[in-house]
C-alpha cells in the first residue's frame, strides 16, 4: 500500500506546486478586480471561483451581443446608405 502511495505522489510531482501557484497568480491577474492589492495570499479556490464567475459572465455577454446584433441586423434591412455599408461587410 505504501508503494502505491509513493507512486501516486511521484506522478503528481511532475507538475510542481510552484507551477500551479504561478498559473493561479496569472489567472488572478486576468480577473477583473478593483482591489489593487492582489496579494499572493489569495487562495486558489477563491481565484478559481472568480474565474468561473468571470467565464460565465463572458458567456452571457457573448449571448447578449449576438442577440442585439441580430436584432439590429433585422431592423437595418431598409434601403439606407448605412445599411448598404453593413450589408457589404457581411453580405
Amino acid at each position: 500500500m505504501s508503494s502505491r502511495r509513493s507512486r501516486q505522489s511521484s506522478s503528481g510531482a511532475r507538475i510542481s506546486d510552484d507551477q500551479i501557484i504561478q498559473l493561479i497568480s496569472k489567472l488572478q491577474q486576468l480577473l477583473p478586480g478593483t482591489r489593487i492589492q492582489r496579494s499572493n495570499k489569495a487562495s486558489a479556490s477563491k481565484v478559481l471561483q472568480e474565474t468561473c464567475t468571470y467565464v460565465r459572465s463572458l458567456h452571457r455577454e457573448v449571448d447578449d451581443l449576438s442577440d442585439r446584433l441580430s436584432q439590429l441586423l433585422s431592423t437595418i434591412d431598409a434601403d439606407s446608405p448605412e445599411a448598404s455599408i453593413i450589408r457589404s461587410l457581411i453580405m
Partner: protein
Amino acid sequence: MHNSSQLKNEFIKKWIQGLQIYCSSKKQMNLLERTKKIKLSADIALASAKHSATCWSKAIISEAKKDERNTILINNLSDPKMNFKCAHQNLACLKRIRSRKILKKSCDVGIKMKKMKPRRQVSNLATCIAKRLVKKRTQVLKRLVPGGESMDEYSIIKEALDYILSLRVQVDVMKNLVNATTNFE
C-alpha cells in the same frame, strides 16, 4: 499585445466570412435563428483562429461538427487537418484520465484506511478542506471551458487562461460591431 491583436484580426476575418456564408444561403431567417447563427459563427471563428493550438478550440469545432448543418461553415473556416488530430487526441486523453482515476481510487482506499487512526492535526485538516474546495471549483471550471471534461487540474487552468483571453477578444469585436451598427440609427 501582439498575440491578441493577431487573434483579433484572424477572428474578424473568419467571423465575417462565416456571416457571409449564412447570408448567402438563406435570405429569410427569424430572429432566434439569426441569433444562433451569429453566435455559432463567432464561436467557430474564434476556435479556428487559434489554429488548433489549444484543447478548448478543438473541442468547440468537434462539437460543432456533430451537427450536419454546420459542415459548410466548418469546412470554410477551419483547417481540415486539425479535425482528424483532435478526435484521436481526445480518445487518448480520455483513456489517460480513466486510468488515472482508477489508480487514484485504489490509492484513496489505502489512504482512508490510514486515516482511521485519530492522529489528525489542525493544519492537515485545513489543507484537506482547501484541497477539496479547489477540487470542487476545478470541476465547475471543467464544465465551463469547452472540452474541459477530459483534462486534469493543471491543464484545465492553463486552458482557462487562454480561453478567457480569447473570449475577451470575441466580446471586444462583437461590441465594436454592435456599437458601429447602433450609431448608424
